[in-house]
């Protein structure tokens, strides 16, 4: 939950509620929102806006696009909320809509999701020494706090991935979608997504190792 929504909702969130209570609360919130209750809609927005915005930002790499993803997602959420069947949590459903919106934007701006493999830099085939990488990552940057410089470096590394690799990495490793869900979202086979994901992980590992070694020099 975001800081904003915590403030807005007051101190009731401090109460530890069970999962079933949470689900019942969520269903009540949805029912009220479907009836047009403005406070319920506001609560839904405040609870989920940060996840939607960050998903948009990571997939599109652009604040303006992320803002559009945010707006289009919630417009669609409230348009379709009466058809929400509660087979999943509301957040999961919203997340899926947001991913769709972001992917549509990426396609429409001709971000070339379907980059032919031969056009990409095949850096996973470039030479690398796994022993060197392993030694580098033994200096776990997370043993201390994730510092600002590292955060910026990692965000840049994600944005510099080709769109197809970025999509696979963000949706699988950061957002936790299954391979099958991602394949369905982007219209590729599970094998193709696995290949994209692996290429993304290898590239990001290289960037991480670069950062660790630069910092330790």
């Amino acid at each position, binding site marked *: 939950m975001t800081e904003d929504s915590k*403030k807005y909702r007051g101190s009731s969130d401090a109460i530890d509620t069970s999962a079933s209570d949470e689900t019942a609360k969520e269903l009540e919130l949805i029912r009220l929102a479907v009836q047009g209750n403005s406070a319920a*809609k506001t609560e839904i927005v405040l609870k989920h806006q940060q996840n939607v915005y960050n998903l948009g*930002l990571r997939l599109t790499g652009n604040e303006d696009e992320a803002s559009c993803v945010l707006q289009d997602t919630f417009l669609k959420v409230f348009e379709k909320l009466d058809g929400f069947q509660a087979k999943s949590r509301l957040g999961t459903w919203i997340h899926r809509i947001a991913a769709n919106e972001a992917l549509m934007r990426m396609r429409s701006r001709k971000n070339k999701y379907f980059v032919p493999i031969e056009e990409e830099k095949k850096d996973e085939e470039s030479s690398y020494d796994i022993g060197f990488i392993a030694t580098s990552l033994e200096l776990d940057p997370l043993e201390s706090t994730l510092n600002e410089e590292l955060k910026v470096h990692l965000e840049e590394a994600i944005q510099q991935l080709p769109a197809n690799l970025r999509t696979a990495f963000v949706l699988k490793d950061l957002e936790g979608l299954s391979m099958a869900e991602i394949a369905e979202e982007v219209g590729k086979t599970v094998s193709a997504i696995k290949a994209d994901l692996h290429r993304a992980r290898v590239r990001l590992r290289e960037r991480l190792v670069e950062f660790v070694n630069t910092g330790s020099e």
Partner: protein
Amino acid sequence: MKKESPCLQSIEQLCDVLEMHLGHEAGSEACRQVMEHVRDCPTCCAEVDTLGKTIKIFREIPTQNVPKDIQWKLMTTLNLELPPELQEKQK
């Protein structure tokens, strides 16, 4: 120079192992066999370990707060009441 290792030729299977480490698709015979191999192979072990560490580190990147102007635009578009912290912008 590229390390010639037959282990790394099974990279797709290693991806599956990694998924297993993260709690997905566990239990298959293929996974079990690959896991056995990885346990005994220092190169594969390092490959899986370093990719796992990479994912862990990237997952720790904190998410950004939605900028106030974007929140304001969103709430206005949705015709919703502005939370107190956004009402200043309205004034």
